[in-house]
């Protein structure tokens, strides 16, 4: 709860009653890892954000900016939270220069609405992220969550061209701009990506857009063994075919995927079964390109000894691709208690995947090898008891060590609170932590932004 008694009154005085919520039941809904704010503020413009931050800064109040709150569980529990800054009221497209393929949008803009606006001009933003239906632009950037289109379009750092944000002193700052090429000043906006609100409150984001592909298609193949599936997956990656998404599903992941597809009454590809490894590839472009890539992928699947394989038309591709885009969302709730790791490795080898898959021997594990060297590794338990948590903690240690040993790294993308109390979701502090700490201090000298959530307790 708030450290100052008259917080609500102070905030109401500054912004007006209609911007502030303090009903206990609403506050509970804004809790981040069980830490509920003392008040919720719903700013309507950047100046109001700055006003709240100035108040927080002068009173040393902790503040957490939130969007749709679909990814608030990423990171460590905050040490405190006085104010939740709900950005969802700021949802305008400030500029859209379709002819330049650039736009600026307020942080609270839902991706779904944005998608519709861009589609009118045959363009899109390649942020295909989980919880897509509710997510806001600002929340997605702050969470740093993976887009399933990374293989082709890169990550947000490759197409975020500028930002406006309020720093820890309550000043509205900007970096970058609205042109696609720009080296003027420090690229501070890159630091906002994945920063979980710890260095600034994002108020506006500038992106470059991409032309909507004419059409798309997919291919799915199943394999007797993880080794074969991985060999195929790596062959597709090495082929340099213009692939939009590439995912390898362990049998456990395939089983959940199949169940979700069936529930949605969508077509269930025969290759997505609960007892085999599967590889999904999607590609896009003109009909001719799609046809060509489909043919090459099919050939690679046969060469790799696929048990079964099948092409996916645009409809089936959307369906399966859509389910896998949401993997982060459904993996979290696939069992009563889940520890979900994100492992990044320079090279994905069969023995590594095997080792990861068998790390938690007594646990039910699932592996989803994604594009760009990212692996989602999920362990599922039946209940959040001390024994399970202890096992999880041991597994976490093993995964962190294994990743580090392969020149990679791992984080816990989702974990029960009890596990976060035993291990840091960020793993060991990185070698450049001293610099990160200084950067945090430069942006947020009073440490008011989401304290404790980030790497090394920042």
């Amino acid at each position, binding site marked *: 709860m708030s450290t100052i008694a008259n917080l609500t009154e102070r905030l109401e005085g500054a912004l007006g009653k209609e911007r502030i919520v303090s009903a206990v039941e609403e506050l509970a809904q804004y809790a981040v890892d069980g830490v509920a704010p003392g008040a919720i503020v719903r700013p309507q413009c950047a100046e109001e954000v700055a006003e709240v931050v100035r108040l927080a800064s002068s009173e040393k109040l902790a503040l957490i900016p939130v969007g749709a709150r679909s990814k608030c569980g990423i990171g460590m529990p905050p040490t405190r939270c006085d104010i939740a800054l709900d950005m969802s009221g700021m949802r305008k497209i400030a500029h859209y220069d379709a002819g330049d393929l650039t736009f600026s949008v307020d942080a609270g803009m839902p991706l779904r609405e944005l998608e519709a606006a861009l589609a009118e001009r045959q363009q899109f933003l390649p942020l295909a992220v989980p919880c897509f239906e509710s997510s806001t632009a600002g929340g997605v950037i702050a969470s740093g969550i993976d887009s399933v289109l990374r293989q082709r379009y890169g990550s947000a750092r490759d197409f975020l061209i500028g930002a406006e944000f309020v720093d820890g002193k309550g000043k509205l700052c900007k970096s970058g701009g609205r042109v696609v*090429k720009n080296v003027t000043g420090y690229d501070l906006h890159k630091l906002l990506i994945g920063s979980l609100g710890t260095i600034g409150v994002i108020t506006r984001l500038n992106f470059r857009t991409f032309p909507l592909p004419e059409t798309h298609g997919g291919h799915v193949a199943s394999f007797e063994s993880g080794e074969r599936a991985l060999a195929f997956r790596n062959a597709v990656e090495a082929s340099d075919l213009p692939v939009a998404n590439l995912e390898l599903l362990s049998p456990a992941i395939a089983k959940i995927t199949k169940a979700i597809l069936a529930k949605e009454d969508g077509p269930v590809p025969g290759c997505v079964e609960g007892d085999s490894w599967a590889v999904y590839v999607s590609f896009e472009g003109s009909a001719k390109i799609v046809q060509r890539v489909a043919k090459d992928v099919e050939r690679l699947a046969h060469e790799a000894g696929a048990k079964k394989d099948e092409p996916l038309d645009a409809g089936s591709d959307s369906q399966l691709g859509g389910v896998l885009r949401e993997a982060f969302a459904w993996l979290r709730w696939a069992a009563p208690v889940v520890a979900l790791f994100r492992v990044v490795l320079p090279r994905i080898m069969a023995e590594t995947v095997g080792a990861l898959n068998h790390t938690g021997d007594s646990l039910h594990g699932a592996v989803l090898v994604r594009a760009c060297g990212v692996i989602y590794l999920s362990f599922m338990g039946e209940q959040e008891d001390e024994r399970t948590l202890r096992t999880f903690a041991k597994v976490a240690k093993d995964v962190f060590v294994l990743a580090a040993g392969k020149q990679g790294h791992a984080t816990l993308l989702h974990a029960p609170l009890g596990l976060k109390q035993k291990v840091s979701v960020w793993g060991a502090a990185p070698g450049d932590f001293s610099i990160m700490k*200084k950067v945090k201090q430069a942006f947020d000298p009073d440490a008011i932004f989401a304290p404790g959530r980030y790497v090394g307790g920042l």
Partner: protein
Amino acid sequence: MGGEIRSLLGPDNVLSANEELLLYEFDGSVEKARPELVVFPRTTEDVSNIVRLAARYQVPIVGRGAGTGLSGGALARGGGVMIVFARMNKIIEIDLESRRAVVQPGVVNADITKAVEHAGLYFAPDPSSQKSCTIGGNVAENAGGPHTLAYGVTTNHIAALELVLPDGEVVRIGSKHGDAPGYDLCGLLVGSEGTLALVTEITVKLSPKPESVKTLLAIFDTIEDASQTVVEITAQGITPAACEMLDGWTLRIVEDYIQAGFPRDSAAVLLLEVEGVREAVEAQETAIGEVCRRCRAREVRIARDDHARELLWKGRKNAFGALGRLAPSNYVLDGVIPRSKLPQALTNILEIGKKYGFHIGNIFHAGDGNLHPIVLYDPRDSQQFKNAVVAAEEIIRYCVELGGTLTGEHGVGMEKNELMSLLFSDADFELMRRVHDAFNPDSSLNPGKIFPLSKGCGEIRIRNRETGGARG
């Protein structure tokens, strides 16, 4: 201090005689500043020792690669020690499977590609000076090049860096495969123009060579038609790998120097390259051809073979050298505008030139709106030099007015630091300053760059520069 550095590095790795230092008072910009010592480290440890020593003597430091920069980034504005990375030019590791190379900062940009092309890979950022500029300089300036239109600038191709901080501490940031937990420090460091740390090792991402490449030369009778073509190509969502424009005046000078095959009687040409899988290349080629014809292109030629392709690119990449034959010096500007505003921008830039008595040539990255107007001048004529600087600033201001920016790839350096307040507010500067100070609290690294030195924002002084120019 000279003696201590000499015993540290050996006398062959230190320059201090005036005539030796003269060579290092220039880079590719129109600025000049002389260091007091020039040193050539061979290892990270050397760099760290030099930095510690300089800190003890409270002497400023500036890093330098090949000195091809165009904004004065590698000039010793504060005097002191210049660390030239030319002898730290080893390729440390090549990992073909992971498509990464670990290199020292003095490795020449094109040498990275040479080392990996046998495996069908290359390093994508391709500044025109790529045969001489170093990767360390590319990282400092976040260098671009013609093919960054499709593949991004240097920052999109860097995975990890080793830094030496101003107190001599060695730190590694980023990770080989990118995506390390924590703030994207590589994203901050790339393009920080040597004002935050010295970079001593770089892990670069390597890209696969495309299956198919086609180079097109679209020939126009008016500059307006050529620039309208760029607007249309962009608006249609066609992303060529490169889309360069040369105006008629410039291409004639280039033809005199290198017979690249640009038609002398044209008003402008677009040099376009499309890459990717065969089917995509064919489709793009057709689409671009249609746009060109709709925009009244006189002719669209397709380079027949690699030799014809290379010749066209040779013409493009050596254009600045060709211009050097016309006047004692040339001032290559670097501004960015929204691409849709290209036609009006080019007209207006020519007008600005006329006002100050210059014919301004244009040879630039049209596809991403990155202009490089060229002002030819004689540095011995102080009035002409002054006019060149005033015209340049007017052009850059105009880019900002159009919604553009000060620099697309050359950096701010000491060329445009006083113009920064056209874009940034006091609050922006305060934050950038705090970030700067987090790394470089005493401004001992590359002082006098990026940040405006004059008081009062919005009020731009014209610097009282010495007459002098590096190009020619």
